[in-house]
């Protein structure tokens, strides 16, 4: 099932929880709605589910407008953040509740319950009550209840956020695999960028009710359209430095506190045609800064070294600016040591400070 949100808005009084959202989700696609809390991602999901009525705009399932279709007729399965398992029912009764409401014969219910339970390996737990299950098992039960209806759209509201870190990582890959096997169009709400990036085919980043960017994880990471996306995606997060654009002798320079970077020709021409104000934000990810002791580049001082095992996260200070840099553990440096840093100019990002828009993308 293809899902299209067209100019979708949901207001609560004066609060614009979702503002003019446009999304096109392909059949069988797994997308994540990502953003900080209060960004409107859950509201969007509940509107797609039909639990909220949109204030403005349309929701299409394939070619059909479903604004007025009640939740039960939308062929959706949903997993809530709290799982919403009925505490007085056994796992079997919880899973088969949607079928019971449709008056499916008990034999059919039994067979289907076993089928979905096998998918997520909980066939041994059918006679337990939810209180007798671990968080991970409860989550699987909730997933079964959503899947037993054979929905055409699966809606997941932060389903992994109540699990411990190890289980979450395991469920991440399992859920991704399951979605690909069943190829159900899936919308996944999360505030965890790692979850969104690792699981989804495409990620819609939202902030304050407005869609910031909707693209695949690679594009999101390497070509963010706005300052917000650049800052939100990536861990450790991107280095952002306030700079201004200066020109001398036909060359372009970025000038910040204690840094001056000469821009390559193709970048500078694009910046010049795109930028409205001379105030820019220069962004570079920690892995695109190289540190050397051969006195090449900008002189700086090591502030702190955090070993991550595979690499070291080094905080470096040059004049008033501090930068995060990922270095190889073979580079032996310690605090207060003098080093020189170099930027990989192919990987830099430039944003308009006022609008937050990327100046390198068209």
């Amino acid at each position, binding site marked *: 099932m293809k899902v299209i949100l067209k100019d979708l808005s949901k207001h609560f009084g004066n609060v614009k929880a979702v503002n003019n959202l446009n999304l096109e989700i392909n059949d069988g696609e797994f997308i994540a709605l990502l953003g900080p809390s209060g960004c409107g991602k859950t509201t969007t999901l509940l509107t797609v589910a039909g639990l909220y009525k949109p204030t403005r705009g349309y929701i299409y399932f394939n070619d059909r407008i479903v604004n007025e279709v009640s939740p*039960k007729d939308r062929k959706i399965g949903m997993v*809530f953040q*709290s799982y919403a398992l009925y505490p*007085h029912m056994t796992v079997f009764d919880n899973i088969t509740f*949607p079928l019971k*409401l449709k008056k499916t014969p008990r034999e059919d219910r039994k067979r289907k319950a076993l089928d979905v339970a096998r998918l997520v390996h909980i066939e041994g737990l059918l006679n337990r009550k939810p209180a007798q299950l671990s968080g991970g098992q409860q989550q699987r039960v909730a997933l079964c*209840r959503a899947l037993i209806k054979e929905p055409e759209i699966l809606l997941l509201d932060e389903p992994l956020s109540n699990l411990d870190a190890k289980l979450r990582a395991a469920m991440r890959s399992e859920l991704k695999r399951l979605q690909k096997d069943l190829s159900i169009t899936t919308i996944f709400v999360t505030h965890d960028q790692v979850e969104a990036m690792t699981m989804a085919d495409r990620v819609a980043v939202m902030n304050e009710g407005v869609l910031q960017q909707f693209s695949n994880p690679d594009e999101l990471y390497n070509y963010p359209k706005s300052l917000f996306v650049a800052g939100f995606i990536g861990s450790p997060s991107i280095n952002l430095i306030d700079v201004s654009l200066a020109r001398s002798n036909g060359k372009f320079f970025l000038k910040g506190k204690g840094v001056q970077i000469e821009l390559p020709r193709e970048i500078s021409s694009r910046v010049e045609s795109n930028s409205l104000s001379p105030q820019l934000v220069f962004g570079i990810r920690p892995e695109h800064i190289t540190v050397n002791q051969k006195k090449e580049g900008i002189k700086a001082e090591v502030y702190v070294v955090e070993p991550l095992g595979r690499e070291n996260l080094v905080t470096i200070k040059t004049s008033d600016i501090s930068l995060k840099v990922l270095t190889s553990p073979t580079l032996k440096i310690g605090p207060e040591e003098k080093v020189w840093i170099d930027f990989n100019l192919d990987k830099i990002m430039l944003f308009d400070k006022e609008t937050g828009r990327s100046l390198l993308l068209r």
Partner: protein
Amino acid sequence: MAKGWLKIRPHWFFLSPGVLLISFFYFIPVVLVFVIAFTNMDQAFNWRFVGLANFSRLFTLRDPLIPRIIKNTIVYIVGALPLTIIGALLISLLTMRVNRTASLFFRAVFFLPRLIPPVVWGFLWMWSFEGTRYGVFNSILGSFGLPIIHWFIKFPMLIVIFANGFLGISLAMLIFTSAIASIPRDYLWAAEIDGASFWQTSRFVIIPLLRWPIMTMTAWHLMSFINSYVYIFLITGGGPYHATEVWALYGYNTAFKNYQYGYGSSIMVVLVVINVLLLITLLRSFGMKKMIERSRIEA
């Protein structure tokens, strides 16, 4: 000495006024009832111990009214208890469906009986069902040219059941609506997505989650109806001709209307024993001990 005693047990000092009052007005009367129940005390307060004579009069049905009183009590409870619980559940569930203002209005209306003084409540019912053409319902019938109905002769028990049932509803409704309000919204949403109608959601999700409040209110009102006689006393006085006389009211009437203090006390002793047995049964069967331990809205 006194100072030392105070130092050791100051709580006794602070508790003593309450303990004295409760002893005087509750404990001593209960003991007295138990003593008087074995006497033949009459209106002149002449008495002598008669052993089990009062009780044998009760249990061997030498009092011809007893079967009738027992039947009345059972009919009254079997009518008023389901009316209270089902009525309160229905109102609580329905007020969920209407908008906030309407819900507040209806809940306020159904809570009114609790705010009205008992005597006023009793007289309202009495006047409404007054059997002459001046009664509220009869004057309505009269304005349509219909003949009057002798309500209290035709439906005495029904009137008494409804008068008490609406009082029960007011409290149970308050408890149920607040319990429903504390059910997480996700449960109701999940049911809605799974295709449950309002009644299916109520039956399969809400009511099972209200198990504890429903049990508390059932136990509460069962005890309350067994012991209640105030409203029946005010509305019908037990009449017409014992048609609405329940056990507790019969005890009252025997003692204070017919001045058979001894026999009246024995009737009340039976009621106390029934209460104790019922309480133990409820504690056992409802697992009330577990229920009292901590607040239980299972969600």
